[in-house]
């Protein structure tokens, strides 16, 4: 397999030295790290250098092609007699790839540079259709902006322009206008450097050159949406947003993606009450600036016609729209009659505020501990797998810390589907930082991108044999004296592991040797989370981490947007908010459903959990829903679970409410309300709070999401001191008090 790591050539991304050098840009003297690209140094000096192809996150090997950032450079020359003089480089230099060196003098405002910029823009525009009035990018287009600031007023080009049909179908979500393309290679570099599938490349040459996939097949990626934002012109366009709005008609609201637990920072662009598109927002600690296609194109449900806009009551098998007064009356009546025989499931898709209000309502008003946010996977005590041994629950590392690893083991995970942004970080660690990646998984999908595309070693084991594989690795570490291994793997042999897992003994040996070389992070995925013997596998992971000296580098990220926050907020049968143990633990999800199926539960409240779709024991879930238990569901649309309920309450999506999510690395991030779909739709916390108030208040009544956040920061130690202000735009990662 070719090694695509870039560590040798990317001095700027991977600085070997922290030496500072003195340079001068337009007369401004400044100190910058040696080897930094001059275009970055210019930013420090506040000097604007226009560019198209340059992008700080893309490798510079294929940059410097637009020639927009040319500057005059004077470099010190040492004469044979030792005297140093400044000499102008004979050609203007591309500042986006020029490494800063001691004594360099950069001029960006000379007549020659002004002329060069005009020249490049004239070239770029001769084949550009200039159809700005109908272009999606018009108004937020780097080509427009640079043409206005640096271009000539007219063109001298009178020949025929290049013509292509519009809207070439490049990908499922991306269409391509080849006429507008300025061949900056940002998209092609993105697929090679960032997403790792290297599907886009250049076809043909010279002025006929065009971007495409190598055999004109569809561009199939899980990150294709990013090329739309990367494109400095309107060549790559979103299929769903095309011709929908002009940028200046859009309002933009900062938010956090609701599609998985990575917590990508996004911007919701909307018009009136309808979501038009999702764009990435920069957060260096989380998504840098990327989004995955699930996040970018998966939010059409927010403004869809299918959204519930009034409470729905099932009477005699028929759904009837009712108003909130009636709905709450019925619900409160049922809850009163239940006299404590109530249970709640869900919360992983709700905000921390929703979850906090949820558990307050149950614990303090309804006096029941039978609530659980988990729908699938391990349902035992959350302290058992990792916390009791290592002092943390899910992720030992921050997402950004993965970059610093020497080796990364991805275990039992289709990482790109489960944790797309963690996948990008792993890929970055590999490509730009020289990390070695090992992928251990039970099945390998065909589609790229995936970890296996760049993993040094791929161990494909028989489903369910994760523990055996890990024990095999431990036995190698022990046998080769690579690490001190405790008793766990004693008596376990490499041969046995090879036989049980179906992975060759050599591969296990190689893996063990790679893992013993330094900082190792282990990222475990769905196969581990949903493993029948979850505790055993996690113990083996712990042993491996401990043996190699990486006890703090175990990562078991949750999957739903707020699975971390729901647990933090105590939507668990055995813990109050902040993992404070309860004296009399309640029932977990499986036990609640069993109780409902047995007929011993009066009311079950499901907060956005897709029980029928996701709960592994589907018969039990069906039996629970078929029982006499009164089931109320908060939902956005009529899902299968909602269909099977008795009362459905229309809940607000993440775009319609304030609040906070806690992502898999424990980063608490704010979301902001963008618009209202309907005034009849309420955020979950308000529904819980209104019920609590009608039931007599207690601690469950709140006035606003911010009000709840105040309560959280007062009552949950890990969230102590968090305020809307301190969370800011990039959020705060909470840490365990003893760390």
């Amino acid at each position: 397999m070719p090694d695509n790591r870039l560590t040798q050539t990317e001095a700027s991304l991977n600085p070997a030295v922290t030496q500072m050098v003195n340079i001068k840009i337009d007369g401004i003297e400044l100190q910058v790290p040696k080897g930094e690209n001059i275009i970055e140094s210019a930013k420090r000096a506040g000097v604007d250098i226009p560019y198209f192809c340059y992008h700080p996150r893309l490798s510079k090997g294929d940059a410097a092609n637009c020639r927009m950032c040319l500057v005059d450079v004077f470099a010190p020359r040492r004469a044979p007699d030792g005297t140093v003089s400044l000499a102008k480089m004979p050609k203007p230099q591309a500042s986006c790839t020029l490494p800063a060196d001691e004594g360099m003098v950069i001029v960006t405002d000379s007549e020659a540079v002004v002329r060069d910029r005009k020249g490049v823009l004239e070239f770029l525009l001769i084949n550009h259709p200039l159809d700005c009035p109908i272009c999606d990018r018009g108004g937020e287009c780097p080509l427009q902006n640079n043409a206005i600031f640096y271009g000539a007023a007219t063109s001298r080009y009178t020949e025929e322009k290049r013509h292509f049909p519009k809207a070439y179908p490049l990908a499922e979500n991306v269409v391509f206008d080849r006429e507008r393309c300025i061949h900056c290679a940002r998209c092609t570099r993105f697929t090679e450097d960032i997403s790792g599938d290297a599907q886009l490349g250049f076809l043909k040459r010279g002025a006929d050159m065009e971007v495409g996939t190598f055999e004109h097949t569809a561009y199939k990626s899980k990150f294709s949406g990013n090329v739309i934002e990367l494109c400095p012109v309107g060549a790559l366009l979103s299929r769903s947003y095309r011709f929908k709005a002009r940028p200046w008609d859009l309002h933009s609201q900062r938010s956090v993606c609701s599609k998985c637990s990575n917590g990508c920072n996004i911007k919701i662009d909307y018009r009136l009450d309808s979501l038009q598109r999702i764009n990435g927002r920069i957060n260096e600690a989380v998504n840098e600036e990327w989004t995955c296609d699930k996040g970018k194109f998966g939010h059409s449900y927010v403004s869809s016609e299918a959204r519930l806009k009034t409470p729905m009551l099932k009477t005699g098998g028929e759904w009837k729209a009712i108003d909130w007064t009636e709905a709450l009356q019925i619900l409160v009546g049922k809850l009163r009659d239940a006299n404590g025989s109530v249970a709640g499931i869900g919360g992983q898709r709700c905000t921390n505020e929703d979850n906090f209000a949820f558990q307050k309502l149950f614990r303090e008003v309804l006096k029941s501990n039978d609530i659980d946010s988990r729908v699938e996977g391990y349902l035992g005590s959350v302290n058992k797998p990792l916390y009791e041994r290592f002092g943390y629950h899910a992720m030992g590392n921050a997402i950004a810390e993965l970059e610093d690893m020497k080796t990364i083991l991805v275990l039992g995970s289709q990482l790109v589907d489960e944790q797309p942004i963690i996948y990008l970080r792993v890929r970055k660690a590999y490509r730009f930082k020289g990390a070695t990646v090992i992928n251990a998984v039970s099945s390998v999908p065909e589609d790229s991108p995936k970890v296996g595309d760049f993993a040094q070693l791929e161990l494909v084991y028989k489903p369910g044999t994760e523990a055996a594989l890990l024990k095999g690795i431990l036995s190698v570490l022990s046998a080769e004296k690579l690490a001190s291994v405790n008793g766990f793997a004693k008596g376990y042999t490499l041969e046995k592991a090879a036989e049980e897992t179906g992975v060759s003994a050599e591969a296990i040996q190689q893996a063990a040797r790679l893992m013993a070389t330094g900082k190792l992070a282990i990222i475990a995925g769905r196969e581990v989370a949903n493993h029948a013997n979850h505790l055993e596998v996690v113990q083996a992971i712990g042993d491996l981490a401990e043996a190699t000296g990486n006890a703090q580098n175990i990562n078991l990220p949750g999957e739903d947007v707020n699975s971390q926050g729901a647990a933090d907020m105590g939507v668990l049968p055995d813990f109050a908010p902040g993992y404070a143990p309860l004296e009399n633990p309640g029932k977990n999800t499986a036990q609640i459903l069993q109780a409902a199926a047995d007929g011993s539960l009066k009311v079950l409240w499901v907060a956005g959990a897709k029980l029928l779709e996701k709960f592994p024991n589907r018969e039990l879930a069906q039996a629970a829903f078929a029982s006499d238990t009164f089931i109320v569901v908060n939902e956005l649309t009529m899902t299968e679970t909602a269909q099977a309920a008795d009362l459905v309450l229309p809940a607000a999506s993440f775009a319609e409410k304030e609040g906070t999510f806690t992502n898999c690395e424990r980063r608490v991030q704010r979301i902001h309300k963008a618009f209202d779909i309907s005034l009849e739709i309420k955020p979950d916390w308000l529904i819980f709070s209104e019920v609590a108030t009608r039931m007599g208040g207690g601690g469950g009544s709140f006035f606003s999401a911010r009000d709840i956040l105040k309560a959280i920061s007062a009552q949950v130690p890990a969230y102590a001191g968090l305020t809307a202000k301190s969370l800011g735009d990039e959020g705060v990662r909470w840490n365990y008090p003893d760390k």
Partner: protein
Amino acid sequence: MAIRNLLFEHREVAGIEEMDVYEKLGGYEGLRRAVTLERQAVIDDVKTSGLRGRGGAGFPTWIKWNGIPKNTDKPHYLICNADEGEPGTYKDRELMLKTPHLLVEGMAIAGYACLGTAGYIYIRGEYVEPAWQIRKAIDQAYKKGYLGKNIMGIEGFNYDLYVHMGAGSYECGEESALMSSLMGERGNPRLKAPHAPLPVHEGVWKSPTLVNNVETYCAAAWILKNGGAEYAKLGTERSKGTKIISVSGHIAKPANYEVEMGTPLLDLLKAAGGVTGGKLKAVIPGGSSVPIMTADKLDKINLDYESCAASGTMLGSGGFMVFNDTTDIVLLMKRTSEFYMHESCGKCTPCREGTRWLFKILDRITSGGGREGDIELLLDICSQIDGRSYCGLGDAAAWPIVGAIKAFREEFEYWIEHKRSPIGDHAVPPTPVVVNPLLTLTPA
């Protein structure tokens, strides 16, 4: 100073491409001598010879050889640039076709001096027969122990030689694009110093890489056989030795001529039999990329790097093209610009867009659509390309047009004013047969 056959010494000998004939005539003596020397002494001998790169740029060869780091554990790669694509140049073809062992020997010497792991001869795709000859020579050299493991009995001197055929791109003759192509990537140029490390530090596969032209390696073989001092006796003060000049065009005896550096241009013209079909009008001395020289200036030009540069042209790769007075310079430039448009890799803006624009204007002028201001526009576009492109191809596309306008501006003016050739009816072009459908776009 005139014809001086060093590399071509044995080109007329029958069977010189075979090992036994080559050895009988002193072949591989250079390698034999080299391996008796220290590696640094070999490089010093090349330094003494004053040999400069024969691919066009004239960079001192020993500096490159000396620049290869001596203490890395990375493999060292040697590349022979045999992607001879410059219009008018065909010297490497003859060297490979007639004396392939000279190149193999030269690369083996360089392999010894630069601790080479493997050598790649990147031959342009159209050079099928030269590649056959080189392959045969490599096979024979392996059999004789001049390549392979422990060469000439020297412990640890392991060196393999491979032939890699290009796929028909002019751009791949550019050093860094050649490296991209060799590694299986698209034949695009790569960043060069000061933006990236020099190839001698980080070339192909991130390893130290030496890239030289066919003629340079062949000259190195001669130098090691006869001694650098011997080579330095030839030529001018700064341009040493000989240079093979490929003479073509309106000339009585078009062929490769190996001349001593500093030979007056007119001497070569005489040696090649003089102009045919009319009076001498112009000469392009170094391949289509270099500025054209009018007949009245030729007596001042000697064939060496400095003299050519002083006259505003370049010795380049030695593609010496002679034109008589039936030549229409505007049509010549249209054909030249069409070549560069077709060969631009498309990577950078000035070259990608500029070369096609140049061609379209010249095409319009020579189709009778010339307008006032076209000449200034051509010059302006050239100045926007020259020095602004990613690699030298853009410069190479701009120089000849600037040179032609400087030397023959009245012909461009004639075309624009009279909508026909200044040369006469016989030179009016037939309607071009358009192969590339994109070129059917008619000028506005």
